[in-house]
Every structure is written in C-alpha cells, then in structure tokens.
C-alpha cells in the first residue's frame, strides 16, 4: 500500500499528493461555495466587525477601542472581566461569554501582535484651558486630588506597559470619557484594590472631559509599542498589577 510510504521518502508521491490536494480544493470551488478559510481572522468575525480586522478600532470617531498592539495580558484580562461581570457592556458580555481561556489567550495574542497605523481621531471643540488642564493631569497629576499622572503607569509616551497596562495614545474621546465614567458608576471594574476606580472617583467630571480630550488630541508616537514589564512603580495599590504599587 502506497499510503504507508512516508511522503517525504518519495518526491514524486509528494508532488502527486500536493496535486491531489489542489484538485480537491478546486472541486470544492466548483460546487459554488468557496471553502471557509481556517484562520483565526475568519473565526473571530464577531470581534473584527467592530474592532477592525487588525484591531484598529472603529474609524472616523466611532466608539470601539483599538485592540492592536495592546499588551496581550491586558486584552485577555478585559475579556475575563466581561465574563466575570466586572466590566459591563452587554454586547461584549454576550460575545465572550462561552470562550475558553485558551481561545481568549489566542485571540488576545493575535490583536497584541497587530501593527497598524493610528488614525487621527476627532477632537471635541473645547476651550484651550480644558486641554491645558487635561495635559496637566496626564503629565503631572493633581496632588491636591491625590491623582497621579497617567504617565506613571500608562507609560512615558502613553503607549502602555507590559504585561497589563493598556496604552491610552490614539484612543477616541468618547471611549476614554465613557470608561472613566464607567469606573465611577461601577460598570467597569478590575481586580481589587481597583486603583483606576479610585482615580476616576477622585477626578471631577470636568477633569474627565479634560483628560479624554487632551489624550484624543495627541499625536501617537512613532514607536507605539508598550514599555517593557517592570519599568514602572505604580503610585497606587493596584490589584491588576499584583501588588506592585506602593502609594495611596
């Protein structure tokens, strides 16, 4: 029986087998329905329809955040938080409800590895003082409110920090302001102690507008990779950073 001969042992047979495969594929085509690609991209159409084929996020000022290039552990943790009810957003909760940790990890790694250019997002038309306040909060924080600068964790260039702090650069205004709002109302949460919930509650509503507007107005740096792991000393206790933080 020729089927017992390893294909590598016989170049002619290998060639014949490849030809047979090609013909087989052609036969599927001939029936009218093209074969469904066995790729992760094809499998995760439910994700890419909103977040983009490469996780670029919705274009032209839409709501859906960019996933491309964010740390894989951060992305996987967000899915887990939707599954556990810590993050509330019905379409996401429904979509990821019955995905296994291994599949979630594979999808997270896919989006983390995508490198696609950032698109400038529309910036709301606000007074210069608002942008100034936003820039101050992001770069220096507000000691009176006990709010640390965003840069302390999200990276000097706001591109995030491995393994689990997301970049803020290039996110839409609507998305950032709604996430900070969600932390105040408890519809977004993370492992306790939840440092982002602390910070969002210390900010005034007008500060949220200011931070979101300033972040959305910034150019994304040429190197948008997250900072390496261990390169930050979080100013607050953060459950998600496994107790790396030390301040209050």
């Amino acid at each position, binding site marked *: 029986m020729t089927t017992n001969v390893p294909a590598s042992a016989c170049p002619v047979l290998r060639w014949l087998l490849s030809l047979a495969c090609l013909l087989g594929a052609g036969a599927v085509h001939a029936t009218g*329905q093209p074969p*469904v690609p066995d790729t*992760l991209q*094809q*499998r*995760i*159409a*439910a*994700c*890419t*329809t*909103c977040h983009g084929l490469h996780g670029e996020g919705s274009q032209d000022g839409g709501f859906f955040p960019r996933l491309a290039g964010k740390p894989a552990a951060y992305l996987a943790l967000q899915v887990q938080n939707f*599954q*556990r*009810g*810590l993050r509330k957003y*019905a*379409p996401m*909760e*429904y*979509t*990821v*409800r*019955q*995905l*296994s940790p*291994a*599949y979630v990890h*594979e999808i997270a790694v896919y989006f983390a590895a995508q490198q696609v250019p950032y698109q400038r997002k529309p910036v709301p038309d606000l007074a210069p003082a608002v942008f100034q306040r936003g820039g101050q909060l992001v770069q220096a924080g507000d000691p009176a409110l006990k709010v640390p600068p965003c840069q302390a964790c999200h990276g000097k260039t706001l591109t995030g920090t491995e393994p689990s702090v997301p970049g803020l650069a290039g996110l839409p205004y609507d998305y950032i302001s709604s996430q900070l709002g969600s932390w105040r109302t408890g519809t977004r949460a993370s492992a306790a102690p939840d440092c982002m919930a602390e910070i969002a509650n210390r900010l005034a509503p007008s500060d949220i507008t200011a931070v979101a507007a300033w972040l959305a107005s910034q150019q994304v740096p040429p190197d948008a990779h997250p900072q390496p792991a261990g390169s930050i000393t979080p100013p607050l206790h953060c459950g998600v950073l496994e107790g790396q933080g030390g301040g209050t």
Partner: protein
Amino acid sequence: MKSLRLLWVPTVFAIMVIAAWWWHHQRSSVGPKAEDPAVAAAMKDAKVIARGRYLTLAGDCVSCHSVAGGQPYAGGRALLTPFGNIPVPNITPDPETGLGNWRFENFWRALHTGMGIGGEPLYPAFSYTSFTKITREDAVAIFAYLQTLPPVHQPPEPLGLRFPYNVRGALTAWRAMYFKSGTYQPDPKQSAAWNRGAYLVQGLGHCNECHAARDTWGGIDTRASLAGGEIPAQNWYAPDLSMQAHGGLHGWTGQDIVDLLKTGQSSKGVAFGPMADVVASSTQYLSDADLHAMADYLQSLPARQPQVDDALRVSSKAVADRGAAIYGQGCAACHGTDGQGVPGVYPPLDGNASVLEPIGVNATRAVLLGGFAPSTAANPRPYSMPPYAQQLSDADVAAVVTYIRQAWSNRVTPVLERDVIKYRHTPVD
C-alpha cells in the same frame, strides 16, 4: 359565560388564602439529626462521589447556583422570573449559608418533593418538577459530591417576588395544579438506552423546564412536553425537540443531536443563547453513551401538527426585497444564497429550528447579537457571527429576519419592527 369564567379569579385567591393558613399551621422543621448509616458510608465512597460529580454536571446545577465571577455552586445571584427575582441558594457545604448542616434526607425532600429544610414549599424556579424523577441512588451521589466542595460563606440575595407571588402558601395551590412527585419509571417496552435517555432528558437534564410552554402561572402543560416554549423573562425561544414530521428538529439525525450537545454545533444548527451555556457547562461533559441515549429518546417524540396557514405569513413585496438585499450583502457569504450554510462551520438557515420557531425572537437576536458557538473540548476554537445591532436599523433587522423566515422552504410569520425594538433592549443575562 364570561361572568362565570371570571369566577376563577376569586376562587384561586380563596384557595391561596386557605393554603397559606394551612401551611402556616403545618410548617415545622423536619429531618433527622444524624445521617443514615448507609448514606453516610456511600458518601465516603470515592466512586459514589465521582459519579455524583458527573451527575451534577449532567444536571447543570452550576449554571443556576453560581454567579458570574463567583465561586461555583455558591449561589449569590437571583433568577429573573416573570413574577420577580428568586434568590439562588448556596449549595456548597458551608454550615451557615450552604448545605453544611443538611442531611441527605433534607436534600432528598428538596429534590424529590420540592420542600425546603424548614418544611416550606420551594419556588419551582428550582426545577423539582423535573428533579423529582431522579433516583434516590443518584441523589445520594449528587449530595455526596456537593458535600466535598470547598465551603463558601455566601448568604442568599433577598427575595424579590411581587405580591401575591411572595405568599409562600400560594405554592401549595400551584403544586396541586402542576406538580406530581415520583421517580422515573422505566418503560419495559423500550430499550435500556431509550430509558436512560428519557431519564436524563425528563429528570436530571430538566430539558422540559425551557423546551415547553408555560402558562400564566408559570406551570407546564405535561401534554406539551418538549414541544418548545418561550423562556420567561429571558426573551429566547427554546425550540420544539421533536425530530418527526413538523417537529422543530425535523431532519436531524441522532448523530446531529449528539454533535450539538457534545461540541456545541451540528450540521443542522449551532447552540447559542442559553443553550450555548448548557453545552459549555453541562452536556459537553456527558459520555457518548448518555448522549446517544438522549438522542434515542428524542427521536421517539411524536410528530407535531403542521403550523396553521394564515394571512400573517405574507409580508409586503417591499419588505421582502429589502430583506433579500440585506441577506445578499451581509448573510449570504457564510449562510449561502441557498440558505444551506457550510456544514460544521456555519449553520444552515433553511429548515433551521431557531429560524422557524413561532415568534422569531431567536433569529432576531442572533442577527442583533451575533456571537460564537461555545468553546468546547471538541470545538475549542469556534467560528462566529458578527453582531449587526450597530449596522442595521430595527426595520432592516425585521426585513432580513422576515426574509430568512420565508425564503427557501421556510414558511413562517414575519417579524415586525416593534418586535426588534423590544428584543434589541433585552438584557443579555
């Protein structure tokens, strides 16, 4: 006649009041202080515990008795019903908030007769209407397994039932109407596999709790067994499970049933909505023998009456054209212009039980929500469908779902824009 018919309202109310009074006088804490020695011995038997674990999975106890992100079996959530919220108890062996102080006899009474440890009738959100069919031996195994779980201290959520449903005594009347206790009685004319399947489907699997219609009082007409029904408060329709003529699963083979329950997907359809949860947390873990047994039993469900022809079937030419155009643009690439799908990847829509169910909620919500088949050991990386809630207006969703419900061999009622508006805002959990 009309005035006579209205008489049942005060009659039922009077029965409820009398029942409440009777129950108040009857109520007493019941149950032995020490465990029955035979049960105590079984509970230490590793084989019994292992079998209990399997049966607990088959009963999908975890899906109600856990909260998202919480400890399995520790309760901590409320079940939404049309009558209000019913807290789900903690069934870990915590002495204060769980089953730590229970003896098997208490557990048996709950499972078999629907009575709580204090002698109170339990709300039938706990499916004792099905669980009563479980054998005593299986109940011992389940109890033995539950008692090996790590105890979790978690008090129950408060009861959120509205009047008059919060009057426990009213349950006595309900039970008289809808509940008959008794373990499963094998049918000697049928095979052992058929009987095993019937036992799993009717008893432990409690399939009928969703796959049958409920009346105003939340009771199930036993004649409508597994004939499909709207899932109260959740806005899903659990399809008819008959595989015979005019049945919801007409055209399915036994292997299709096994595939769906094992992998989350068959060549005829995909488990989504609440059924995806059932597959993920329960049926994927069942042995092939048990799944084949369930399929054997389902194959014997009788043929159904054809749905009545009526003018409602017709939708306007404009709606049909719009639906066809949207289908061609968004759906045909995966589900095919012929509605046949791609076997094992994308489900067919022609003849699909979830497309043809009577109210159209499943197809509407599938279009709005999209989603994945569940990840299972046999299908760990499922394909998915994009959600169209953001892209399609209510009128567009109504048009395309109506098109799907009336294309190919499908001939069922249209879906209206107002239905889509309602389903768009249904919470997902």
